[in-house]
């Protein structure tokens, strides 16, 4: 047999094995402890773990282990988990709740270091982090635009799994002048 043909055959077999291993690893469910224990966790690698999650609406925030085990959830579960995990990896994060003109809402987790936000809707795309300005208004504009919609209010909120309570800290109203946004002075000072 041609030695080059034999080499090619082995290389193909190796590639198939590597693909299978990668797929099995990707399909294997992970836990919150796995995420917290990953010392090389970055926003990008965090987002990369959710590519096979399904979307489903829940009227409440799911328990993190349930969310990861069932691989089913929504933007709120994803953003809150990103905030929870990345904050513990020394990232500065903010949870943003954007209310769209149609009445539905969308949550994202903004990460200051990467100047962008993690969006559950981007989990299947190569570009999992959406670049955006720092202000709540800029983030809301970008998030609403991804739905081709307008927004009415956008709020920064905090959430703790143990308390299971969302606390809105700042709210920006679209019709207000941008100079009156609650974070306008802070953003101006930080720039």
């Amino acid at each position, binding site marked *: 047999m041609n030695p080059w043909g034999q080499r090619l055959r082995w290389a193909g077999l190796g590639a198939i094995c590597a693909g299978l291993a990668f797929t099995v690893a990707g399909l294997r469910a992970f836990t919150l402890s796995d995420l917290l224990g990953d010392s090389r966790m970055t926003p990008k690698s965090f987002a990369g773990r959710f590519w096979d999650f399904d979307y489903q609406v829940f*009227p*409440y925030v799911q328990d993190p282990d349930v969310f990861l085990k069932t691989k089913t959830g929504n933007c709120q579960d994803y953003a809150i988990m990103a905030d929870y995990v990345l904050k513990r990896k020394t990232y500065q994060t903010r949870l943003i709740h954007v*209310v769209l*003109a149609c*009445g539905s809402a969308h949550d994202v987790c903004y990460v200051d270091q990467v100047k962008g936000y993690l969006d559950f809707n981007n989990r299947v795309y190569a570009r999992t982090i959406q670049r955006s300005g720092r202000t709540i208004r800029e983030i809301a504009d970008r998030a609403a635009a991804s739905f081709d919609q*307008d927004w*009415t*209010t956008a*709020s920064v*909120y905090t959430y703790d799994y143990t308390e*299971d*309570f*969302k*606390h*809105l800290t700042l*709210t*920006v*109203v*679209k*019709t*207000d002048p941008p100079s009156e946004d609650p974070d306008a002075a802070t953003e101006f000072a930080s720039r």
Partner: protein
Amino acid sequence: MKAPAPSTDVMRDRTVRRILAFFAVISAVLVAIAVVSVRNIQRSAASSDWVNHTHAVILEVNDVLSAVRVGDAAVLTYVVTGDPQSRVAGREAFSDVDEHLAAAKALTRNEPAQHEEVARLDTLAAKRIEFSGELLAARQSGQPDAVRVLLASDAGEEALADLQRTAENLTNEEMNLLADRDRTSFLQAQMTRWTVWSGVVVNLILLGGVVWLISDDIAARRRAAAVLQEANDVLEARVRERTASLTAANQQLVIENLERSWLGQSQEHQIRYNQLIIDSISDLVFVLTKALNISRINPAVVHLTGFESQDLIHQPLSRVARLLAEPRAAAPLVNPIARALVEGRDLRDQPAEVEDRNGKATPARLSVYPLRDRDKVVGGVVILRTGGPNL
């Protein structure tokens, strides 16, 4: 009389300037339409934002009311059944109340009347949540009496109805605002339509003007070309006439030249013939000017005197010939030859002598005949006969 056709260059320059001016106006109108339309669209977007804003307030207020109702019902269910799921549901619903109230407050912070209503809603909801909290605490601490007392003192549906009235008032106010904002949005949309269509009409009129200008220019050019053609035709006709006239004159001239040539030849022939006649005469012939200078001689003179023709031409006749006085007559005062020429009469057969080159004199008989040109004596012919019986 026709007006002179304008110069093509001037006409073109003027037309080009006018067309450019028209297009500048059209461009300005387009830019103005674009600016006004963009502004209207921005205003329309702002109006749309306000409409969305109003809907959001209504939605948040209704969500507050709904969450209070759900939370209230869940807490009551828990108190009655002890179902922990109901307790969790109640807590989540009251959590939602805070969230919706916070949003409603933010939405109405620049609308004092509505903000006041939201604050009232907040107070009523807080009271209801506080009551539910007390009820939960009593239920969890296992005090059925306290629960009964609390339920007995509860305003119940009345409290919720109050909450609902407040929410309805707020909703009605927002609906009025919605109507105003929707009207504003509609008017802005109408203004945008009006602006765009007006601009289109103005531009169409201007384009019509350009078309008219171009067609007028083309017509003017055609008129100018026709006038030019007419002038060319007239000029060509004149050139043709002139050419024909010149051709005819030339032909006449050719004929005249031919005739003159023939006449010249004839005269030359006649002169030669006359010359031959004169030259064949054996007498001496002198042609004199009025001043009695020799202008011509015949070969007999050369033969007799030995002078060449060039020696005698322009010389006075007296150099070679002179009259001899009558033997008994006194010398005349005036040369008889000159007098004969002045008087225009012949002088015939007078005694004379001819002196040759060597000074030898030869007797001769001299006759003078005046030469006339239209009755005017211009010279004379002197004939000297040297042979014969009367010498």
